[in-house]
């Protein structure tokens, strides 16, 4: 793969990359910033890319690693020191879920209400069509974790959908 092919493939991936960035950040502006940073990093180290592997997985990994780095920086800026990424994402998840459940009126809000830890494997498997093994490799978690998080995500969606029906 030459440079032009690499760039063309990256451009073709942009809508999917931005969707994954949104899943990670749950914020349009944050997603755009993350996408910009990840693409810049990918361009800088494009020669490290193994063309025998799918570019999308490589880019998803870069996106996720950049987001983990970013939320750690934010913690440090807030004077709370470094924390494990999983701990941080769970915290964000709870906050996001609490806010969005209250406003859940549409499908968008139900899915947005999912925590990042649940939304990431759900998006990669249900929307992107990756296998549990592929998703596990991209997210650096065991396959069993991917399986259980997807199941929990589905059950949580159902709970919120049922809650909404009861409200209506």
């Amino acid at each position, binding site marked *: 793969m030459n440079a032009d092919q690499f*760039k063309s493939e990256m451009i073709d991936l942009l*809508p999917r990359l*931005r969707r994954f960035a949104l899943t990670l950040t749950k914020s349009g502006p944050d997603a755009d910033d993350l996408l910009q940073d990840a693409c*810049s990093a990918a361009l800088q180290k*494009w020669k490290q890319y193994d063309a025998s592997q799918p570019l999308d997985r490589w880019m998803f990994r870069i996106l996720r690693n950049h987001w983990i780095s970013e939320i750690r920086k934010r913690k440090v800026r807030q004077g709370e020191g470094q924390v494990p990424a999983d701990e941080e994402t769970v915290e964000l998840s709870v906050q996001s879920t609490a806010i969005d459940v209250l406003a859940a009126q549409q499908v968008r809000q139900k899915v947005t209400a999912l925590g990042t830890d649940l939304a990431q494997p*759900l998006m990669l498997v249900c*929307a992107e069509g990756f296998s549990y093994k592929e998703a596990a490799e991209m997210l650096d978690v065991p396959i069993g974790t991917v399986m259980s998080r997807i199941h929990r995500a589905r059950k949580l969606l159902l709970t919120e959908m049922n809650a909404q029906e009861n409200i209506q």
Partner: protein
Amino acid sequence: MIQLDLSQRLSAYLDGELDPADAAEIETLLANDLEAQAELDALMMADTSAQEYYAEELDAPVPFDLAKMIMTADLEDGTPVPANTQRRPIWGMLAAGLAVFMIGGFGGYTFKGQTQTAEPKGWIAAIAEYHAVYASQGRHLVEVGADESDHIETWLGNTIGASFTIPDLTSHGLTFEGGRLVVANGKPVAQLMYTTADGTVIALCLQATSKSGPAPFAETSNGEFDFVSWTDDGADHVLIGPSDLFDLSEIAGTAALEI
């Protein structure tokens, strides 16, 4: 080994992640167990909701500046270029990328809200007047026919002072009919004429320019015609077609690559 409950197994079954024996066992269960069926239906409903949400996310506009940054990034240092690949200037790469994601359906939201819709000005306004006249000329549409394509490239290229290759736009259903020489803003313009199967005329015009660098696509319209213009390789280009009949951006992406 982790023991999965039925709901977890159904979720994995939904994703095709159970081994054949487990899947067969689930299918036997589903055939006889209403509760299992209801649980699978519920999981599928949740899945459908998620997929609807994620499908919408793909329609979100991708920042044009980011796409441009990627396309214009200089990655060539030490990069081998295949012998059959012609190295193109930056705009060539830009156009290549544009064409790739325009043709692939990406251009729709890349340029959403980011193109000009103002009245054409300068040489494009003059070209619009010519097009209104020439596009209705039928058998006198061109001065030199497509059967003399080599001559058109030499003749018009030398006259306007910018060499070009006649783009093959057959992938867009356009047949090259030939070319003519016109004048706009006191300078010669090469006008390449294409027609659709129903005789609609699309024109690609180019005029030498002294502008130092490339300029990306800009869309304009005068109500009667739409225009996509760009600058590259020492020439201003504009593609003209009837308003609302064609996605000129896609055709322009191919033309910018081939010319």
